[in-house]
């Protein structure tokens, strides 16, 4: 307002910023709107052609939703044990002991080279023939832990290797024995590197846990299939299951991304 005739270049900056923010908001609005429209159209279309029995969904929805608890439980417990297995596996893969290294490499190769569903069946149906009988839920958890542990072994190995060599050298120069260096210096830093990846795997695990439905574990997919078959309404029940999986993965992905951002900020 000092010199009204000559606008200063910075007087236009807030306007530029505001217009960009408006454009961004509009873009997001339109993008979200597209979601709603497409989903809405599919649902309305199914409903209008009399393919969806809403009363049936209302009646059975809660029963199917009740399986989500077991889906989450199985996933949480499995990711926990997978993390431990991955830690041990990664140490093995990085070990200079040829036997430990061999065992870890064999584990990773074997698990990554066979389908998860074969592993699940193997633990539930094949192990009893050699006298190891496990109930369905533990079988599923063991198979999922075992499977994810192998994939995460490679992630953990990369994470450990991503800790700068200088950290190890500094710790060793202080006279710390190898194990202490690993436990106190390398692993805590490697863990920070791999936590986002663990979150990613957890979201994947939520979906893969549906495979344990073949063991009659009453999780989401099992319940939806049970209800669908017995009432000849697989469309509704699979839609319900898909919707719940979707909501679960979106929710956990959101937290995972926030965590990732926080970890990224914490670095250096």
């Amino acid at each position, binding site marked *: 307002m000092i010199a009204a005739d000559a606008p200063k270049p910075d007087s236009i900056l807030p306007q530029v910023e505001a217009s960009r923010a408006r454009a961004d908001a509009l873009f997001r609005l*339109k993008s979200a709107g*597209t979601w709603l*429209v*497409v989903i809405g*159209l*599919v649902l*309305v*279309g*199914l409903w209008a*052609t*009399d*393919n969806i029995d809403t009363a049936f969904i209302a*009646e*059975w929805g*809660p*029963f199917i939703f*009740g399986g989500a608890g077991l889906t989450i439980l199985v996933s949480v417990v499995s990711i926990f044990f997978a993390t431990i297995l991955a830690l041990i596996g990664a140490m093995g893969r990085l070990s200079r002991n040829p036997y430990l290294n061999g065992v870890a490499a064999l584990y990773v190769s074997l698990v990554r080279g066979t389908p998860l569903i074969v592993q699940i069946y193997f633990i539930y*149906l094949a192990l*009893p*023939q050699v006298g190891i*009988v496990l*109930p*369905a839920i533990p079988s599923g958890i063991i198979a999922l832990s075992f499977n994810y542990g192998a994939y995460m072994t490679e992630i953990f190995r990369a994470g450990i290797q991503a800790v700068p060599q200088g950290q190890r050298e500094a710790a060793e120069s202080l006279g710390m024995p190898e194990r202490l260096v690993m436990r106190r210096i390398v692993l805590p830093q490697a863990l920070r590197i791999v936590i986002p990846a663990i979150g990613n795997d957890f979201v994947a695990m939520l979906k893969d846990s549906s495979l344990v439905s*073949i063991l*009659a574990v*009453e999780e989401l997919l099992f319940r939806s299939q*049970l*209800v*669908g*078959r*017995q*009432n*000849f309404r*697989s*469309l509704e029940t699979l839609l319900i299951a898909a919707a719940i999986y979707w909501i679960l993965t979106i929710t956990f992905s959101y937290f995972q991304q926030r965590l990732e951002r926080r970890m990224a900020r914490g670095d250096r």
Partner: protein
Amino acid sequence: MNHLRLGATVLASMMLVAACTPAGSGSASPSSAAGSSAASPSNATADIPAVVCVGEATTYLDWLNGDLKPDTQDAITEPSSTTGDLLETIKQRGKLAIATDANYEPQSFRKPDGSWQGFDIDVGTEIAKRLGVTAEFQHQEWDIITAGSWSGRWDISVGSMTITTGRKDLFSFNQPYYYTPAYMAASTRSGVTSVDQLPFDLPSGVEAVTRPTDSNCVEDIKANRPEFDLLITSGTVIDAAVTSGQPIVKIGEPIFQENLAVAIDKSGPTHAALLFEIDKAIGEMHADGTLTTLSEKWFEGEDLTQDPSGG
């Protein structure tokens, strides 16, 4: 530009909806093939695939493959001692673990609150009661139950298992607790209402396809999948499906009779005493009318507990 993109999205989603809508569903008229057959009902041979759908590991599959050997239970005698018998274990734990496939309405299915119901469930509950323990049901896929080697995960099957010569290698059977006829059903779209319309011999002229469980066959027909128009399963299952409005009809006479019994895994622990006690309980349930009452409750007033062979 933006409007154009939005328009395209809307169009695409409408096409998606259209694609999701089965051709002959809802109020739409049936497909032309079905229409013509329906116009001239009997005696004209139907133009349908020579394929019959059955559940995995069922006697219906055995029948189609020519392997079915219906059988009766072996003689059951009271053992001299119950020491170490599975019966003792069950009584100690106070629970009888019963496996059943919950995909068979009205024998075994679930309510929205998750609880179990059906004829097999009531029979299992009654057996447990007469043994002085409580029944605990668990769902297992039928092919897993019939494969044997239960590894002690459950004690008995009360799942309308047909006694066959082959299965007697794997299981100890009680006297049958009821008898159902196996029937064939056809899709309504095929227009088939009698076996005479089938342009092939049974079972030699057809190919069997299996689904994880019998009701999946009905679902495939309901979804208008083209692979088959025929299925074989228990008459009771067909009746229940027809009652619930599924697009199938029961055709022909019963194909064969099934003697349905409780089964115990032979590879498990000693169970002579358990077998005897359960057999005694079933005998009593036949005698005191319990089974007849349950049958009439679940099978639309029919009493299926009388041996049709008169034995």
